[in-house]
């Protein structure tokens, strides 16, 4: 006997870039017991459940087309906060925004934040996010003291780096496929000012930019590069920032207040920022982007070159949140991001080749961002001792197949350079590429963990079925065999 899921629960759910559209039965629990019940419902009806936070992933990691999506955003209570130690315990639906707004006045800031403040902690740990300080601070998971999780078996586990450490290092970063975080205890960073000191400089070539990211990393707390994807040399601009120390901020009480940490309502003093995306869309084409990027680069190389200025923490960290719905400016087809992580030695050449390959295919990236990283020991770790380059692409009905073909070409360059990928950003990887960057051992470990935590395969996402299920259910050859086969086929 099947339980009928009410059709009223059907909701349109998409990726952050609005380029992948699905419909699924959405449940929004507030209690752990409801989640456990949903697992049983799914099991009885041979359905699967995907976990979803704020849906800020760029690809299909928080989608489960035609099946159940468990939206955890209502589980958003802050459970404990100790301003003495900076330790906070939260439910998984609490967002980065909620955290900093709660703790800032006590002088604490999340040790790792993404380029947007809207992710939930559950989603951020599902992916194990990094910030513009990755080489220094590591991933968010490295600041987690403990979490509790509900496994699809019904078992509730408490994990710390010492207790159940295998689960600690695999649930974090496993894209919501092994268990549900139900509470998270995080150590925040003590800060003495709500401002950072920012330095900006232009970099005429990509190789120079990457060299700077490496060389100057010791001098700053954050460092990030903007790359002009329409330019052959990958010219761009670096922004680096420091927390202010001790008495560098004369009015910490002011800068650590919420009133101070606001994003402006208007641009150029008059355009309401809610209308901004609408005007941006007229530049979201190859010539428009060239124009904007060229202007931006020349600004960075002249007026802004080697300038230092003071900026609020949120203005520096959440630049992208400045423009609400900016992703809408990419038009009806939306956007995707292609992000890869390459070692120090191979990064510069490979990234330049990738930029040029994209240009040659008539698909220059409209936004390129570089960062400096360090490896970590989580199961599906994306980071390496090296760099990342994120490339944003406009999707249209006409270019979908060409974009996929370009991604396939770029994948080969990344693999040849010993690189890695990141599920939070992916919508173009293929089964064989995943085997080649994750490797046999990681996939075997994941398979064993899936068997232990989720023997009935209740936790599934579109990404799981696309990239991982073949290894778990064994209808795919062992990754190594697959690599050999795909090499033979070429």
């Amino acid at each position, binding site marked *: 006997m*099947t339980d*009928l*899921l009410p*059709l009223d629960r*059907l*909701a*349109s759910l998409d*990726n952050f870039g609005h*380029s*992948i*559209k*699905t*419909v699924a039965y959405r449940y929004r629990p507030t209690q752990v017991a409801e989640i456990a019940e949903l697992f049983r419902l799914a099991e009885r*009806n*041979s*359905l699967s459940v995907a976990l979803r936070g704020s849906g800020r992933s760029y*690809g*299909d990691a928080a989608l489960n*087309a*035609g*099946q159940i999506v468990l939206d955890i955003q209502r589980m958003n209570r802050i459970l404990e906060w100790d301003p003495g130690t900076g330790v906070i315990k939260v439910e998984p639906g609490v967002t980065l925004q909620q955290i900093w707004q709660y703790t800032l006045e006590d002088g604490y800031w999340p040790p790792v934040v993404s380029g947007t403040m809207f992710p939930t902690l559950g989603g951020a740990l599902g992916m194990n996010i990094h910030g513009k300080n990755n080489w220094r601070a590591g991933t968010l998971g490295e600041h987690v003291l403990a979490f509790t999780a509900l496994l699809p078996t019904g078992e509730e586990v408490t994990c710390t780096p010492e207790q159940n450490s295998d689960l600690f290092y695999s649930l974090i970063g496993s894209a919501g496929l092994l268990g549900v975080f139900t509470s998270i205890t995080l150590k925040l960073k003590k800060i003495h000012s709500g401002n950072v000191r920012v330095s900006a400089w232009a970099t005429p070539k990509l190789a120079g930019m990457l060299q700077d990211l490496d060389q100057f990393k010791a001098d700053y707390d954050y460092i990030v590069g903007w790359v002009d994807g329409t330019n052959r040399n990958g010219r761009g601009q670096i922004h680096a920032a420091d927390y202010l120390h001790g008495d560098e901020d004369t009015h910490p009480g002011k800068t650590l207040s919420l009133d101070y940490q606001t994003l402006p309502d208007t641009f150029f003093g008059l355009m309401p920022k809610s209308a901004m995306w609408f005007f941006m869309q007229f530049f979201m084409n190859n010539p428009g982007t060239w124009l904007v990027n060229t202007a931006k680069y020349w600004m960075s190389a002249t007026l802004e070159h080697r300038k230092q200025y003071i900026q609020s923490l949120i203005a520096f960290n959440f630049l992208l949140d400045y423009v609400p719905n900016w992703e809408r400016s990419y038009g009806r087809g939306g956007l*995707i991001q292609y992000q890869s992580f390459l070692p120090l030695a191979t990064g510069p050449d490979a990234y330049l080749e990738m930029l040029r390959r994209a240009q040659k295919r008539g698909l220059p990236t409209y936004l390129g961002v570089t960062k400096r990283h360090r490896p970590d020991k989580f199961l599906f770790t994306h980071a390496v001792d090296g760099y990342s380059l994120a490339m944003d692409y406009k*999707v249209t009905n006409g270019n*979908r*197949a060409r*974009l*996929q073909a370009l*991604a396939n070409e770029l994948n080969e360059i990344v693999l040849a350079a010993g690189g890695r990928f990141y599920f939070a950003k992916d*919508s*173009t990887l*293929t*089964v*064989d590429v995943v085997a080649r960057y994750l490797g046999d051992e990681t996939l075997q470990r994941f398979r064993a963990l899936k068997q232990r935590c989720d023997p009935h395969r209740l936790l599934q996402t*579109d990404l799981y079925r*696309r990239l991982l299920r*073949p290894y778990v259910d064994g209808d*795919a*050859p062992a990754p190594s065999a*697959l690599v050999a*086969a795909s090499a033979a086929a070429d």
Partner: protein
Amino acid sequence: MASSTRSPLTPSPVALIIGASSGIGEALAHRLAGDGYRLALVARRTDRLEQLAAALEAAAGPRLGPGCARVYAHDVTDYAAVPALFQKILAELGRLDVVVYNAGLLQPVGLDEYDFAKDRAMLEVNTLGALAWLNQAAQLFERQRAGHLVGISSVAGDRGRVGAPGYNTSKAALSTYLEALRNRLSRHGVHVLTVKPGFVRTEMLKTAARTFWVITPEQAAKDIAAAVRARRQVIYTPARWGLLMFVIRHIPSFVFRRLKF
């Protein structure tokens, strides 16, 4: 592994055909698979559906990936089973873009025959089954603000004739229901297509008395697929029936009462 060209960037749409085991439904399955659709095939005769699915996999499998045509055994008069089956199909195929209600039954009756069992059987398959299925699809499509609902009605629904009161009624009701759905759903971006075939060379036609302008199911399928693409509201297939039915619809009753067809 045969990696299909499907990716989140290049997804393949899905069509559900209720009544896919022969005739127009079968031909439409071939046509839509050729256009890149994955398929959910519903009918009672699963042996025929399995054969069809195998043929579709052979033709389109390399492009659309394994499992691109799935078979579901179902009698459309088992109304209570519809919601669960609909849920299962949506879960297994992940999405639905086109839902075609094609199941149909024609029980010939004599000019002076009144047979409630036959009439009821036709209403149950042609009309009630359609309501059961399209009600589900309508709710999905309204929420996704997209989708094509297709009902295979008939020219027979345009007038009540001496030869086929029950069948006429079943198709007239279906056409009216489709019109109502269109009026409900077009504001949500959903397209509703009413298809009125004339004579199509299928098993059903074997029982028909006099026929003319007979087309193949493949021709009908081609017209239907084109009408889906063009978001037409009502089509006749072949198109010339539109003209003929315009005339027939305007024959005054005092004349129509004297006709023998």
